């Protein structure tokens, strides 16, 4: 069984295609071109799969096991971890705090996805219209924002919104004449999330803008021109021509944004260190961290993480199916 079949993938025709990993027993004339082509994809995939299995698969398995155990700080340092069945899950699902965090995360995610998509699209449309010089200028600006690590960005934004010495309070006072001395931007949960949204959106717009800008170059000029001659305004052209052309790009970008924003961690975690009330501002990622590392309850934290993984996987499935469909068409 040296030519054992290890990978199977769905064939376009609906049947199953076998992908041998190693060439079978050598034929007299050596592997033909067609045969080599049949197993190459499998071989090429293998290294990536091994890395994924080690780096992502193994921790996931551990996480899954841990979520069924009583796992505290003592277990981290080697004490045996007793299995407790679904105890961690019932604890999480019956905790109103968890549901509050989940709802908060979803709302925060929606707000951020919408803001980033709208702004990103507008920037992309802008880049499509301006001349070469400004196109480069905007691209460089976007790249700089994109290249900035999230933690660094959050700390700097935190300085700007600082209660005592922040430039935002200073400017608002200078411009509006209102008293913004010692106005805390983070103490009120809503205001906290407005600041967080600014930071997250600031970091997310470049990706959206670049991707959509790349898509825009694929929209045929002639169609747009024809529409313009027929009297279609800017909004109408976007809605009826540009958007249908870019629909699949939009779907993919939105799904990616949803995934990224739902598991947002760095920005929220760093902002909580600067100010605000943790309990009222924690999102899923931060809540898992607080439960696991903060309270030392890794079992419960693991259960929340598994729930989050399930949530993410179901969203990702839509993305994967969409990309597969795209490949076929």
């Amino acid at each position, binding site marked *: 069984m040296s030519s054992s079949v290890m990978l199977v993938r769905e064939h376009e025709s609906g049947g199953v295609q076998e992908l041998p990993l190693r060439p079978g027993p050598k034929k007299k004339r050596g592997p033909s071109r067609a045969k080599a082509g049949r197993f190459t994809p499998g071989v090429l995939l293998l290294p990536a799969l091994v890395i994924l299995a080690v780096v992502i698969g193994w921790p996931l398995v551990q996480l899954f096991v841990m979520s069924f155990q009583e796992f505290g*700080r*003592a277990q981290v*340092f080697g*004490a045996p971890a007793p299995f407790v069945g679904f105890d961690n899950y019932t604890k999480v699902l019956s905790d109103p705090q968890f549901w509050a965090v989940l709802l908060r995360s979803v709302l925060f995610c929606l707000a951020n996805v919408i803001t980033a998509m709208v702004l990103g699209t507008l920037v992309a449309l802008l880049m499509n219209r301006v001349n070469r010089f400004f196109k480069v200028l905007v691209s460089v600006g976007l790249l700089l924002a994109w290249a900035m690590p999230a933690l660094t960005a959050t700390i700097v934004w935190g300085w700007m919104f600082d209660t*005592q010495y922040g430039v935002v309070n200073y400017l608002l006072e200078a411009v509006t004449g209102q008293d913004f001395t010692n106005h805390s931007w983070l*103490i009120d949960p809503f205001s906290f999330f407005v600041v967080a949204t600014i930071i997250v959106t600031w970091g997310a717009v470049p990706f959206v803008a670049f991707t959509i800008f790349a898509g825009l170059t694929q929209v045929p000029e002639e169609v747009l021109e024809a529409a313009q001659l027929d009297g279609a305004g800017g909004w109408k052209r976007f809605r009826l021509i540009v958007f249908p052309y870019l629909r699949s790009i939009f779907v993919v970008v939105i799904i990616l944004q949803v995934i990224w924003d739902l598991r947002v961690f760095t920005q929220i975690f760093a902002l909580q260190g600067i100010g605000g009330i943790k309990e*009222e501002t924690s999102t899923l990622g931060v809540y898992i961290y607080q439960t696991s*590392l903060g309270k*030392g309850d890794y079992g419960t934290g693991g259960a929340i993480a598994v729930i989050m993984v399930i949530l993410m996987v179901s969203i990702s499935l839509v993305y994967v199916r969409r990309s597969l469909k795209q490949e076929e068409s």
Partner: protein
Amino acid sequence: MNTMRKTTLAVTALGVTAALALAGCAGGSSSGGNTDAAATGDIRVWLNGTDTPQAARDYLKTTFESEHPGSTLTIEEQAWTGLVDKLTTNLSGSDSPDVVEVGNTQAAAFTSAGAFLDLTDQYDALGGSDLLPGFVEAGSYDGKFFAAPYYSGARLVFYKKDLLAKAGLTVPTTLDQYISNGVALAAANPGVSGIYFPGQDWYNALPYIWENGGEIATQSGATWTSSFSSPESIAGLKQVQEVMTKASVAPKDGNETDPQVPFCEGVIANLSAPSWVKGSILAPADAKAPGCPDQEANLGVYALPGKSGGAAHVFAGGSNIAVSAKSAHPELAKDALAIMLSDDYQTILGKAGLVPAKVSLASTIGTDDVAKATAEAAANAKLTPASPKWADVEASGALQDFFVAIGQGGDVTALAQALDQKIDGILNS
């Protein structure tokens, strides 16, 4: 210096008791050591914040490397914020630091989990009964000695002499007078904190609870009961709220780091902070973290007064130092730890305003105002509940959230009841 001598005596007495208790467990296991003395390696020492002065760091590195030719010692500075999380992940990994500093109230979380190497057989060599007893207790678990005292520090009140004099006030002798002074100073100087009290600074809220007869949590049998909502604690918390809302203009959700910035800017009249903050305030104007050395003559200091005079029960802050159970060079690490507890090293700490880990070196902190106030404050200092789970309470952030809500003028009783429920849940989980 009377108080100081009394303290020393009391502390020594406690030390003897602790030593006797510990001696019982120390027997029989004092054979280890010197077997791999020839081995060389690179030792990583984790120190937290800027508390350890540069002179001490240099001394540690030079001494260790000259005593162990071929070995190196690297000091890696960690932030106090999030330390419990960081230690948990790093001490359990294969790339563990060798020697780590840990907050005295956090030590129990690690001693009880087996994260530290057992130092019971080193107890006498490190100083024995001369070591600060409260810290020996914090570093011991189940009759074994895991984390040695490193230094202790008390919270003092630094104040601007001119502001106090201008308002016609004197250094307060009771807690009530301290509060009324603060409120009066804030009213007389708009934009200035009579008492600087950022909302997340929960350590500074503890004296108000303790002075009113309250406790953080009490233990009966194996059960802990959080008692922030006891009538005594509530009385103290109401005072905290009064200070936060009427005497302080500090950010209601701010934390206690870098208080020298607003202090030097001139918007603080009274600042309750660890004794080493004096060094930050008087740092040269061109330092990396600049201070305001020109204010030296104007900078006064006193120990926070208690409800009925004398020094208040303040939080006994400080650190323990331990060897990671996963250290690749435990013998070298133990030697490095021994240097940090040597008289020379501890004297450097003492001169920098930290209370040394050894009772016999108490006099090294000198005789200036800060030293006197430190001795007074340390005499009445108290610790957080001695539960291995207490570090989890700290790390959960519940205390910070609670005092931020108090600072916003929330309903003290309702908030305290909710906090008690949360802490009970963690301590008894």
